[in-house]
């Protein structure tokens, strides 16, 4: 059992007011809030040991390098990667995806196939379309049903020896569906394809084990896990990372440089050109410690409780429809009220202190599937409460009355 009231004390922002009302923060799928320990880690870094890493012999640089590499090890342990050098530190999920998509340019030829899912975020569609344009590879899409679940029998049909890559998110950001990634990975491996799992939405709820999953690549962002923005990771199996060429040229990623030839550094530095977000990576490590102390099992079961309560309460509202109704879903409720534009609802509930996302959630193909302009999305985190859900429900009711 979580002591939610005590947990809320860890988050200074939850005490603030918005438009004269207490903040109800239900946009956790966009970014999570930051606990004091993570804020302290950021302040501590800039107050006490801010220095560039892997370069200086001076003490400050050593301390910063140690803290940075210690954070990489924490991330390795959290995701259960075999080696620390299989964790590439990036600016976030989008950056991580682009390293792989760009790297595969040299590994694909015309007629090869790439499979993505109908539930993808734009950041997991556009880089692959660009890769297809560069290589002549063909993009195939796993379709979904009305409940927002991927059709696995259709996936089976798409797979062939032409398939070189499969990219799916573990959890859909727009609908909250949890995809059967174990099945997807196993089936892809049967035809020799590599699999990239986008864990941006799942990491706040589920602790992944990349070795047990046998994922070839796994990407995620710190800011969805109570960490700072501008930090993320690319996990890749050592053999795959060695196959991919460097993404950017610059300092840190080299072994020897002459004007005739440069040899590249080994993993992970090959993919970490330039000065990284040192403070952000260290604070990401602190955020993982924080979340692991609370415990992902406890988080998941409490968030399920919030999801069930929120679903039940919202469905009491006349004309309200929920998009994404799989039994396998996380604490995300995407909804509309018949005849009312999601922006109108979002604008009004914001004035009542409730932060929800409105729009297409960077997943226009999903909105096109349902033939809607967008949805209102409320996403719950372990620091939210049922009382806050009541405020959401009352605010939506008020908005509906005004807008009808």
């Amino acid at each position, binding site marked *: 059992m979580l002591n939610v009231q005590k947990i809320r004390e860890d988050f200074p922002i939850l005490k603030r007011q918005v*438009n004269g009302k207490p903040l109800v923060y239900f946009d956790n799928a966009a970014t999570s809030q930051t606990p004091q320990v993570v804020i302290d880690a950021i302040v501590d870094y800039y107050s006490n040991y801010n220095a560039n890493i892997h370069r200086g012999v001076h003490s400050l640089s050593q301390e910063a390098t140690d803290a940075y590499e210690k954070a990489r090890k924490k991330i390795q342990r959290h995701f259960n990667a075999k080696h620390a050098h299989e964790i590439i530190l990036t600016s976030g999920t989008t950056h991580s995806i682009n390293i792989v998509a760009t790297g595969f340019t040299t590994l694909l030829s015309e007629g090869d196939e790439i499979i993505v899912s109908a539930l993808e975020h734009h950041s997991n569609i556009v880089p692959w379309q660009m890769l297809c344009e560069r290589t002549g590879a063909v993009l195939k899409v796993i379709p979904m049903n009305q409940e927002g679940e991927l059709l696995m029998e259709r996936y089976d049909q798409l797979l062939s020896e032409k398939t070189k890559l499969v990219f799916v998110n573990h959890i859909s950001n727009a609908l909250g569906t949890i995809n059967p990634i174990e099945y997807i990975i196993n089936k892809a491996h049967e035809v020799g394809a590599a699999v990239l799992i986008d864990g941006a939405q799942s990491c706040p709820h589920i602790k992944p084990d990349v070795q047990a999953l046998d994922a070839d690549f796994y990407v995620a962002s710190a800011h969805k896990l109570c960490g700072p923005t501008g930090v993320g990771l690319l996990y890749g199996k050592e053999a795959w990372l060695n196959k991919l060429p460097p993404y950017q040229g610059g300092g840190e990623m080299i072994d020897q440089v002459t004007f005739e030839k440069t040899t590249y550094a080994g993993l992970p530095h090959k993919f970490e050109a330039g000065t990284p977000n040192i403070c952000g990576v260290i604070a990401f490590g602190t955020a993982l410690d924080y979340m692991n102390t609370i415990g992902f099992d406890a988080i998941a079961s409490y968030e399920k409780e919030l999801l069930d309560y929120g679903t039940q309460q919202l469905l009491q509202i006349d004309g309200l429809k929920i998009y994404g109704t799989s039994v396998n879903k996380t604490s995300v409720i995407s909804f509309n009220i018949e005849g*009312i*534009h999601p*922006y*109108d609802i*979002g*604008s*009004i509930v*914001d*004035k009542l202190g409730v932060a929800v996302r*409105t*729009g297409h959630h960077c997943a226009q193909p999903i909105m096109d599937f349902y033939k809607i*302009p*967008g949805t209102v999305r409320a996403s719950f985190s372990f620091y939210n409460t049922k009382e806050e859900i009541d405020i959401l429900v009352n605010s939506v009711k008020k908005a509906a009355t*005004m*807008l009808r």
Partner: protein
Amino acid sequence: MSIQEIQEEIVDEFSMFDDWMQRYEYMIELGKSLPLIEDKYKTDDNIIKGCQSKVWVHAEMKNDQIAFTADSDAIITKGIIAILIRAFSNQHPQDIIDADTKFIDEIGLKEHLSPTRANGLVSMIKQLKLYAVAYQTQLN
């Protein structure tokens, strides 16, 4: 009435309300009085870019004055475009080009719009002024 006078009238009307809720309700009311665009003009070309909900605007010149019609799929947005059209419609193109839009700040519209919607507001004003520039060119 001149654009300036209409804008002052709108500012007066909004000053009667104490809280944002009443202002929103009034905006929704104003949306209902919007001169609606004919369906045949509801084309992708007439959608204003930069708004997250759909806003269509059409302009016609009658007796050296521009008459605007519009519609939106979101009610609050419809209210916003209605306010703008009330200020700018049935005016000479040059007057529309010269008009300032300080009244938007004075009625507190901007602060009550999310940034994306505030950007949409700028796009809407820009589009109305673009029509005025186009028609003014014809007159010259």
